[in-house]
């Protein structure tokens, strides 16, 4: 989970300490569909997978990123 928060922070260009487990695209400034696409890109490259559009659209919270990784049997 800390690494998921660090990934999100790096994409959003914010301090990792600002990202909490309960955060969403509504609570974290700068988190829009462009950020979600960048998050998806890093996950895809690191783990050699391709996400479908519906999965990327759901990348709107820290929990959703964690659940996405879990669905693919991945961890960070």
């Amino acid at each position, binding site marked *: 989970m800390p690494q998921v928060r660090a990934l999100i922070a*790096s*994409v959003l*260009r914010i301090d990792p300490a600002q990202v909490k487990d309960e955060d969403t695209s*509504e609570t974290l*400034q*700068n*988190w*829009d*569909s*462009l950020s979600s*696409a*960048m998050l998806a*890109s*890093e996950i*895809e*490259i*690191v783990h*050699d997978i*391709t996400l479908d*559009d519906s999965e*990327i659209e759901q990348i709107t919270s820290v929990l959703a990123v964690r659940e996405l990784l879990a669905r693919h049997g991945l961890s960070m």
Partner: protein
Amino acid sequence: MVYGGRTPKARTVLVYGNCQAPYLAHMLASLDDLNDDYRFVAALCYAMPGEARAPAVPHEDMKDVALLLRQHEEAQHNPALEALTSRLPAGCPVIRYPSFNMLSQWPFEAAEPRNPHDPTFTVWKRYPLGDMLGLQIARAGLSGPLAVAAYMDLSQRKMPDLQVRLQRDIDRMRRYDAHSDVKLADYVLARFREEHLFWTSGHVSAQAMAELARRVAEAARPVLGGRDERAVACLAAASNYGGMGEHQNPIHPVVAEALGLKFWQTDFAYRWQTQHWTFYEYIQRYIEYDMNW
């Protein structure tokens, strides 16, 4: 970031958005047949590095606002926009325009975590655009031509389906267009293979910015006046500033081939601050975080 305005009585046109907004304001200030004297004031949607909030527009620039040019953003509540709109006069017209974005040309882009002491580059880093595979090669301790060879090998193995990546860009551009009075997707899709439009995923050439300005001027014509033929001439004359920023992020040869980028050439030298490097020269320096320039 104020552009144009011949007299102290000039009315304000606010140009709100990301780093593209000041360039748009600069271009629009070149229009010389508008129906009044206007100053174009760029208002950033984000805070600069080290700052807590976006810079506020000075009081004197908010006195007589004729128009807000608002870049489309998905966030429902951006404090920067809320602070700006709360100071607008009632009934102030608003025209929405999209931002330029294309991620697919740099599939390995990531945040740059390295931050060595570098007095020459204090606000933005010497290498502000990270490359996740380049970082991996750097962590392995490779340098020189061996690092480049390792990067090329790794990047070809890791290359994602670029048609999927491109389609994501296209879908996003069309979504932005759907929320905007000004459209850009048709222009980008017709040109990006022929011209070096995108210098980074969010920075574009002077020609691309001129086209955005022309389209914004067209949408703003009922408020600001002016003619399209004159706008084309003024914007062409104002396009000699060289384009957005000091970096042209080099494009991987496999990306260029997969996306059909006709302007790409092996020996194309990209601008990087004061330097001009090919893709291969750049990636070696990036991996090494070369500071000897």
